[in-house]
């Protein structure tokens, strides 16, 4: 590994100063499951690594009913997935925390790290898109909020400046009478990168049975994780049944621009979007007792 300096700040201010002082060549370290490997193979060569795990603000994991879920950048997937309010209110987030990488990875890696790595295949990202999560970014010019749907700029690219840090992800409270689900397709049972992934979140008015909110997000089928807005529009306002689910799912490829690679072809990935979306929507309906 190319030599680098290492700091482990105890406060957010210290971390911001360290990032600012590195001339754009610092990298924040959360779980390290991406960064350490990237440094080992020379894909990233920071002059300074800033371990953010000892900063109390980065270890915040808190659910406030009127405000939502705060997931600090250093909180591991294991801790997030076991947090009772996540289990209760955000089933798709709980799901992805238990399927990204191995147990060893989940014990270190954070959702914020997965977001900052900005891979099109990041499993934690589609559920965040369906809940309209916000990224709280801090840097030398203060603090700003970026909606997760505007965070990604391409494979491995995002809107954060080199001297900025992702402090936490805020996930708004889910709508009443809603459920969210995520499914991915991998050739193995565990430990693989999604050929395609789909998250759905729908809210249904209990009286009219009509869908009041629909969110569908897809992974591994475009340069960034994407919302399938055409499909969402089919669901909203409708009584969701098998026909409506099919019609919505069939439109998901509109949002995609997949590549053919060793994991799957363009056509296969588009077909997976339909199938996975259909199944996640069926699971959501089942969760809602419909």
């Amino acid at each position: 590994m190319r030599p680098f300096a290492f700091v482990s700040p105890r406060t957010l201010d210290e971390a911001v100063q360290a990032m600012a002082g590195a001339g754009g060549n610092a990298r924040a370290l959360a779980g390290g499951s991406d960064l350490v490997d990237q440094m080992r193979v020379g894909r990233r060569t920071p002059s300074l690594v800033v371990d953010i795990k000892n900063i109390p603000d980065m270890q915040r994991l808190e659910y406030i009913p009127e405000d939502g879920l705060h997931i600090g950048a250093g909180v591991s997937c294991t801790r997030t997935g076991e947090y009772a309010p996540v289990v209760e209110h955000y089933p798709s987030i709980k799901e992805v925390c238990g399927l990204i990488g191995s147990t060893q990875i989940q014990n270190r890696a954070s959702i914020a790290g997965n977001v900052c790595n900005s891979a099109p295949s990041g499993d934690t990202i589609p559920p965040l898109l369906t809940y309209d999560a916000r990224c709280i970014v801090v840097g030398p010019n203060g603090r700003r909020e970026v909606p997760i749907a505007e965070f990604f700029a391409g494979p491995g690219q995002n809107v954060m400046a080199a001297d900025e840090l992702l402090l936490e992800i805020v996930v708004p409270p889910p709508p009443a009478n809603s459920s969210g689900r995520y499914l991915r397709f991998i050739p193995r049972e565990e430990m693989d990168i999604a050929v395609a992934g789909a998250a759905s979140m729908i809210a249904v008015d209990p009286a009219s049975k009509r869908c009041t909110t629909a969110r569908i997000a897809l992974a591994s089928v475009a340069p960034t994780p994407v919302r399938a807005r055409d499909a969402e529009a089919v669901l909203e306002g409708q009584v969701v049944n098998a026909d409506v689910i099919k019609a919505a799912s069939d439109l998901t490829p509109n949002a995609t621009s997949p590549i053919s690679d060793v994991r799957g072809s363009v056509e296969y990935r588009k077909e997976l979007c339909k199938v996975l979306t259909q199944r996640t929507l069926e699971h959501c309906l089942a969760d809602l007792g419909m």
Partner: protein
Amino acid sequence: MEQTIRKAPLQCRVNGENVEVLVKPWQTLLEVLRDELRLTGTKEGCSNGNCGACTVIIDGQAVDSCLTLGLEADGHEVTTIEGLADGAELHPVQRAFMEHGALQCGFCTPGFIMSAKAFLDKHPNPTETELRTGIAGNLCRCTGYDKIIKAIMSITEK
């Protein structure tokens, strides 16, 4: 806050003993354990978090030591395969692997045993499916896993 491009002190507990060692910031925990502390029971396989041969336990949780920088262990409790046995008394997971012949070449075994120990500490009564998922981060290229699963299941609470 000091930025260290040379060696920095790492203070942690390894297998119940206080350790203080100078490490390079770019040394992984795996390298620190093997090259500085001479604890060579922990193995290097893929070096990228796929095979789990380097699994150690930090504060009760299984982690890939190849993806952890040595300095990240500062202030933490690290357990390696060398720290499992109680004197001459093998840990139950070690004994189960031996009694079931759950290894051939043995290279993956320390990682499997550390993963299994951490898993059983948290899930003393798993189903076989839960166990297989729990240790999916460890690869074995000899056994086909069957004996490993049987060994670990033999010591679960029935």
